[in-house]
């Protein structure tokens, strides 16, 4: 907090590359839209282990959604790290908490 050369407008991240955001956007949009297209899965068959399609299809989207978000997480944290390094080149910020005026 005592650092005087940090202002409101000091950038925390460099410019973004669009590709990771576009891919993540598509994956997340799929995870939102697919479970909501009810006419596609509101039917009884084919059954799986006795579960009507309506029930197993929706439950199947739980792990799929987790995987899609996992990929997005991986893409965006890598991009975040790169953008951050672009404005704060010094390494070694692995502190468990932020003490405010830590950055230069």
């Amino acid at each position: 907090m005592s650092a005087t050369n940090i202002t409101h407008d000091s950038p925390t991240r460099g410019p973004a590359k669009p590709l990771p955001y576009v891919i993540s956007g598509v994956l997340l949009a799929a995870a939102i839209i697919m479970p909501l297209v009810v006419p596609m899965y509101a039917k009884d068959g084919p059954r799986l282990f006795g579960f009507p399609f309506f029930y197993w299809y929706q439950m199947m989207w739980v792990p799929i959604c987790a995987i899609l978000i996992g990929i997005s997480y991986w893409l965006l944290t890598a991009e975040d790290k790169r953008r951050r390094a672009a404005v704060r080149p010094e390494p070694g910020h692995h502190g468990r908490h932020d003490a405010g005026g830590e950055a230069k």
Partner: protein
Amino acid sequence: MSAALGNLTGVLAAAPTATRGINVTALVVVIVLFVLVGILGFYAARWRSGGTDGLHSLDEWGLGGRKFGSWITWFLLGGDLYTAYTFVAVPAAMWAAGSVSGFFAVPYTIVLYPIVFLLMARLWSVSKRHGFVTTADFVGGRYGSRPLTLAIALTGIIATMPYIALQLVGIKSVLTVLGVGNPGNWFLNDLPLIVAFVVLAVYTYTSGLRAPAMIAVVKDVLIYLAVIVAIIYLPSKFGGWEHIFGAAQEKMTTVNPATGKVPGPFIPGADSYAAYATLALGSAMALFMYPHSITGVLATKSRNTIRKNAAVLPLYSLVLGFLALLGYVAIAAGTHPVELNGKTINPQLVVPQLFLDNFPSWFAGVALAAIAVGALVPAAIMSIAAANLFTRNIYRDLFRKDATPRQEAKVSKLASLVVKFGALIFVIGLDASAAINMQLLGGIWILQTFPAIVAGLYTRWFHKWALFAGWAVGIVYGTWTAYSVVNPVTHAHFGGSIAAIPGTNTKVYIAVTAFVLNAVVALVVTLVLRALKVPDGKDITRASDYGADEDDPEVRAFAARSVDTPGPVI
């Protein structure tokens, strides 16, 4: 979660059983686990305590020091979002009314996480930099509008109260199944609930958010244990899933002589596609507007903790899906969920009753304790979140602008007691269906804060008065429409959460129609006010705030000055 439960309260019928007895073994197990959890709650005050300052600030008491890592956050948010009421009400809805009012919880908790992933990292960053504790803090910083901030804060507080009340309803259903209580005497009847409430109130007061964070771990171990055992054992006992779905399908397609209708859809027909999808989407959009979800988000250590959690929290949704299906298992098992008087059928008792009927008493005790403890975690977080809103956005903003962190913590602790006490009176004084109706309204109301909060995370385009107008229109329309839904059995108002879009026959979740209206009003009024050049509020946030991480310097020291020009928006 209870969005579609309004219609359940009408499902009451007579049944020929004697009065309930007390199941001693199960009751002892529940009491022992409850006491252990209470002790843990008190101990939590010392866990990662706030250094020399103790718990005397909102950051420490109300946000657990803002340093929960991925694991604790997983348990905390899991315990926060999947409440006792979920575990009781979703299977109850499946048991009584079939898939549309119950199983929508599955797509709801699927589409929830991409939405969280998209929104919450930005909210975390800007809140961390400015020391925001509530969404109303953020809206206040972003738009510089006292009425808008107050609208967001009051909506949050009022929507949370019945939600807490429903946690107590969850505890009550466990106690009823155990045979505790006395229908003839209101004080003895509610005494166990009052005791549970006092335990909750005292450890929340002393330990703040640390208590539910710790208890959430215990709750999850119990819940996962109970559900996994139930899912493996019960289907084999009742003839496999094929037979269970068969029994459910038969119930849902057999006309009930009392109402002249079928209980509900086994698989939704074309007339309920829109209702099913909007219930799922609207509930998902609303959930992270609730103060308690935001509290869980802001208590995390770093920007990415919440994104990582969005990828692993869906594990709970699988548990929820199977729990929902326990409602069908109970149909196949012929579970008879009956109140203490031995006559009134109450669907809310179906899962506790299923466990009690089909497992040894000690294991049923573990499962019932899981539900009861599962109520303590969210109830604690909700009361903390509502108290923080009161402290920050009513006490400090309106009455004591120079409040010190210590004063804030003190006010918040007291407010959390008041909020919980209000919820208790709610449950004891009014009946459960009033709490359900209020919760239904709460869901509609809280979604009306979405435009101000979420649009604000990405753009400063909307005018503060336009957002206020949109909020007001959404609240009025939503309340009026929900009031107009009449329960076909009891003829009571607030009979459900589904209504036709005006001018059409398409039935959808009322919260979503109100939200669309809200957004359109906000858009149109912004265009008008911009054209008229009506002055807008000051924005103390800057573009760089929205991507800040834990290693970036905070800007609280700057927030007070240099606010003349709003920052660029990315």
